[in-house]
């Protein structure tokens, strides 16, 4: 072995040192997490010590690390694959044992499981074979040329994406428009798409405040709540229709945005985040405690569903004096009509948000937002009123939150303060940050990842937080500024967008 290492940068004693270091780390990490366990015995709660788990954890770490050292130093492809496979089997063994309470030292659970039936033998062999093959065939001598190649590829992808954002956006819009035709009868698919679309709209709304104006808002859900309660209360107390309430909900939310904006004008960064967080909580607590108006924790139920622009109704039994949607178009009654209508409604609202944002970016107000994000003092020296600029960002962002809230209320038919917790604000902010601040397509991707995936893979709900954590770590490592974090200039003088991007990548 030492002969093998002699040719490379690392010598034997260094390898031993490295392995010992990782063994100690594995020991420290596993001793409390795996090694000690509380067991409920008839005599009371007892501590059980599971040295087998600790040993396996250390073994898996050391073997795996050795495999990685082999890989780094480019030694024996077969050896690398064997070591990495062994390590993976050990990790599997550890997980299986962790779930069983009795401590068994000798017979490995993995082998027991594999030989228990024909199917499990096949699965077991496949498991080992896949890991072995992956380890064996991904092994490659990484030279400088390869690194160059991969950098070139990533810049090629970036160039393709950034010079075709319009086309990509258009394809996305077409996909979302024909979505109900593909999944027309699948109720859960339409429901999920509607939910994702609500978050896309909220993400786009918050993007104005956080992405463009650079004001970190942790209480965005408050405006969502204001919009939802505005519609619910106006419709119940004054019998106003959804189509009249929608703009009103936006106006109410915008005025709350201004109310929030005034006291926080002087604040920035962390301080602003804390105050907006508090504002979000104030709204929620008021909704819970103002029982006479909001119904407190009971919420507001049987909120009116939207009609087809006041022309027709979606219910099976239409009220006196109106006609059903199916009658209007001479179709069979289907409960899907309303859902599909709601889907298109939120799609249109979200697209309006998007186009208004894109347009505002190219207007003086949008440029002033971005300038304010870059340097507030310079803005003042150029005659830009920072107060108005910030307030307009808060108000416009809040307005779209209000629209989304009114839509949420009419879709659910029931709202309560529980829908407007801090967690919602955090999710919306995560969508904006994950997508890449200021990137419209990034928000869509992030909303699908954050809202769509957890709903689609409900069977894996147990591991949701685990996958979530791994995902966040991966994002921090590879794309710390969000999935698509590029700023496209609002106006170009003598370059095309493509040239500009190409120049930036180099």
């Amino acid at each position, binding site marked *: 072995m030492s002969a093998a290492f002699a040719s490379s940068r690392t010598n034997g004693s260094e390898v031993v040192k490295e392995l010992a270091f990782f063994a100690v780390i594995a020991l420290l990490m596993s001793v409390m997490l795996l090694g000690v366990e509380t067991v409920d015995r008839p005599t009371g709660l007892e501590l059980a010590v599971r040295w087998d788990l600790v040993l396996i954890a250390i073994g898996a770490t050391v073997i795996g690390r050795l495999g990685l050292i082999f890989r780094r130093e480019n030694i024996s492809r077969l050896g690398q694959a064997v070591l990495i496979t062994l390590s993976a089997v050990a990790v599997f063994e550890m997980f299986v044992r962790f779930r069983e309470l009795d401590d068994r030292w000798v017979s490995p659970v993995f082998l027991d499981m594999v030989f228990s039936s024909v199917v499990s033998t096949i699965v077991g062999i496949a498991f080992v074979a896949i890991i072995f093959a992956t380890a064996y065939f991904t092994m490659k001598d990484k030279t400088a040329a390869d690194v160059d190649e991969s950098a070139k590829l990533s810049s090629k992808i970036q160039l393709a994406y950034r010079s075709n954002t319009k086309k990509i956006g258009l394809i996305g819009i077409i996909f979302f428009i024909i979505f109900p035709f593909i999944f027309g009868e699948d109720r859960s698919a339409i429901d999920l798409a509607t939910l994702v679309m609500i978050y896309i709209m909220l993400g786009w709304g918050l993007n104005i405040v956080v992405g463009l104006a650079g004001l970190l808002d942790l209480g965005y859900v408050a405006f969502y709540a204001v919009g939802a309660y505005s519609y619910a209360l106006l419709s119940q107390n004054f019998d106003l229709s959804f189509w009249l309430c929608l703009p009103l909900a936006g106006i109410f939310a915008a005025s709350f945005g201004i109310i929030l904006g005034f006291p926080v004008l002087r604040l920035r960064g962390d301080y602003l985040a804390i105050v907006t967080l508090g504002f979000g909580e104030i709204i929620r607590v008021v909704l819970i405690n103002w029982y006479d108006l909001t119904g407190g924790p009971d919420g507001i139920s049987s909120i009116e569903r939207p009609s087809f622009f006041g022309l027709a109704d979606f219910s099976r039994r239409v009220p006196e004096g109106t006609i059903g949607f199916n009658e209007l178009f001479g179709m069979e009654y289907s409960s899907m009509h309303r859902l599909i209508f709601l889907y298109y409604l939120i799609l249109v609202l979200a697209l309006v948000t998007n186009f*208004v944002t894109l*347009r*505002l970016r190219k*207007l*003086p*107000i949008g*440029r*002033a937002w*971005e*300038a304010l994000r*870059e*340097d507030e*003092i*310079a*803005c*003042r*020296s*150029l*005659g*830009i*009123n*920072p107060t108005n600029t910030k307030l307009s960002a808060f108000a416009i962002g809040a307005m779209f939150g209000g629209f989304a809230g009114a839509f949420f209320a009419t879709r659910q038919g029931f709202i309560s303060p529980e829908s407007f917790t801090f967690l919602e604000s955090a999710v919306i902010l995560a969508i904006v940050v994950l997508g890449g601040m200021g990137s419209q397509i990034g928000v869509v991707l992030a909303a699908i990842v954050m809202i769509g995936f957890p709903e689609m893979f409900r069977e894996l709900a147990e591991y949701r937080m685990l996958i979530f954590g791994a995902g966040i770590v991966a994002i921090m490592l590879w794309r710390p500024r969000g999935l698509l974090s590029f*700023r496209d*200039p*609002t*106006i*170009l*003088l*003598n*370059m095309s967008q493509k040239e*500009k991007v190409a*120049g*930036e990548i180099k």
Partner: protein
Amino acid sequence: MTDNKLLEVEHLTMRFGGLVAIDDLSFNANKREITAIIGPNGAGKTTVFNCLTGFYVPTEGRLTLHADDGPRLLERTEGFRIPRNKGVARTFQNIRLFTGMTVLENLIVAQHNRLMEASAFSLAGLFNLGRYAKAEKEAVEKAEFWLEKVGLYAQADWNAGNLPYGSQRRLEIARAMCTDPSLLCLDEPAAGLNPRESAELNVLLQSIRDDQGVGCLLIEHDMSVVMQISDHVIVLDYGKKIADGNPEAVKNDPAVIRAYLGEEEDDELPPEVAADLHLDPKAQ
């Protein structure tokens, strides 16, 4: 002579707690002239600028800008209103560009107020109505004019942060000029420039004075800039004005020499110390 006054500073005093940064300072700056304010570090030069441009509210004193539409009291104007309607524009000692935005965008942001009006506070702009489109075109033309002027036309689409240092300085001047000021305050525009760049800066500032008819107020340590282009020099020390006049006169003013180089102190040293110093010059 009185019609020619652009800026009148009367009895300006600025205190920060117990520290008197500016002490009863009065001076005038004239139209179509470059007025330089010089002085050792900590003399209060930048504080004067911060008072003029509304970043500080002076403790005492009156600051009058004689703009085309009549006199304005700067100390009573909100900071962000001072640059409006042919007001006072400034650059900063440590450059403050919008580094993530392009060079052209920097110059268009500077024309915010006119564009905002043309876009009817975004309502008309949202639908790209004719008036806004025209205003934006004019704004781009103005930006192009200044880009040519400071020699950054080819870099118009670069991110401002990617420009070399000297170009960033020139861009900041162009950005300030895009607000259409009647007085331009430059805080150490030649700091960090090489001799060729500072010669170019001289030409640019002279052109701003002669072609645009804009009065300049200049803080500068680089004497080659100050002595060559300024029409009028004011020297500050410890917040007080110690000299005021044309460059030649100021250069030879004993008070100025004392402030910059210190006094001849040999006589005041105790005789034995002076003797030691003269005996063994290498010991110093």
